[in-house]
C-alpha cells in the first residue's frame, strides 16, 4: 500500500470514529448548562495527535466539527465548536512534543479547557455581554474533569493501538 493512501485511510477512519462518537453523545441529554458535556470525540483527536501526527489530528478535528455541525443541525454551535477546536488544537501542537506516553491525559485536560475558553470567546463576541464570563469557572471545572476522563481513555487507546499501527500502517 502506498504510504500517502494509507495515511488518508487512517485519517478517514479516525474521522468516522470521531463522528460516530459525537453523534452518540448528542443522544445524552444535556444537563442544562450550554457547553458542559463529556466531549467524548476528544478521545479520537488526542489519540490521532499521538498516533498519526498533530496535523492529521487537526484535519480530523476540522472534518468532525463541520460534519458534526451539519448532523446536529445547529449551525450556530458550529462556530462555537470551530473556535473551541482551533484553540484546543493550537495548545496540542507544543504539548505533543513535551508529553511522554504516560502523560497523554494532560493533553486532553488542557485541550478541553482551551476548547471551553474558545467557546466563551465566541459567545462574548456574539452577545457582547460580559455576563457570559460568569460561565467560565463552571465550564473550566467541567472541562478539566471531562478532559481527564477522555484523556485517560485516549491514553489507553494509544498504548493499545500503537503496536497494531506499527505492524499494519506506518513507520
Amino acid at each position, binding site marked *: 500500500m502506498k504510504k500517502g493512501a494509507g495515511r488518508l485511510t487512517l485519517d478517514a477512519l479516525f474521522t468516522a470514529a470521531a463522528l460516530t462518537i459525537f453523534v452518540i453523545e448528542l443522544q445524552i441529554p444535556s444537563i442544562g448548562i450550554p457547553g458542559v458535556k463529556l466531549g467524548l470525540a476528544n478521545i479520537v483527536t488526542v489519540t490521532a495527535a499521538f498516533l498519526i501526527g498533530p496535523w492529521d489530528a487537526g484535519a480530523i478535528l476540522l472534518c468532525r466539527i463541520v460534519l458534526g455541525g451539519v448532523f446536529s443541525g445547529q449551525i450556530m454551535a458550529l462556530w462555537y465548536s470551530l473556535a473551541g477546536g482551533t484553540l484546543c488544537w493550537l495548545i496540542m501542537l507544543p504539548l505533543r512534543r*513535551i*508529553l*511522554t506516553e*504516560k*502523560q497523554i491525559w*494532560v493533553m486532553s*485536560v*488542557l485541550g478541553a*479547557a482551551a476548547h471551553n475558553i474558545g467557546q466563551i470567546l465566541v459567545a462574548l463576541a456574539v*452577545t*457582547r*455581554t*460580559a*455576563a457570559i464570563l*460568569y*460561565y*467560565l*469557572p*463552571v465550564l*473550566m*471545572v467541567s472541562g*478539566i*474533569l471531562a478532559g*481527564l476522563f477522555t484523556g485517560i481513555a485516549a491514553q489507553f487507546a494509544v498504548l493499545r493501538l500503537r503496536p497494531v499501527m506499527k505492524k499494519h500502517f506506518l513507520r
Partner: protein
Amino acid sequence: MIKTKTWVLILGALLLTALLSCLILYTRPAPGTVANIYRDGVPVRSVDLSLVTEPWEFTLSDERGANVIRVEPGRIAVIDADCPDRICVEAGWLSDSASPIVCLPHRLVIRIEKNAAAEGDPVPDTVSR
C-alpha cells in the same frame, strides 16, 4: 520532559482555582440585572449592571439627538438629554425590570432584563401600568 507529578500539580491547581471561583461567584447573590438599550426597537447596547463596580457614563446619539447614560453598580439612568420633554431624565434610576426608561422623541428604550443565570422569583412577563 516534565514529570507526571508536576503535571498533576499544575492541573490540580487549575482545577482548584476554577472550583474556588465557582464557589465565590455562584454563592454570591445571582447577577440578575442586565440593562438592554434599544433604539427604534432594535437592541443597540447591553450592560450587565451586576458586573459594574465603578460608575461610568456614555452618550448615545443619532440625528434625533443625544442621551447621556450613567451606569452605577446595579442601576442605570439617563442623566442628560437634549430631547424636548426630558421625561427620560426625570424617570431617574432604573434597577429592576418593572418599567423601562423611555425617551419617545429619540425612540430610545432602556429595559432591564434578567439574564439566564438569575434565580429567585419568576420574573413577570410584563407590567400593567
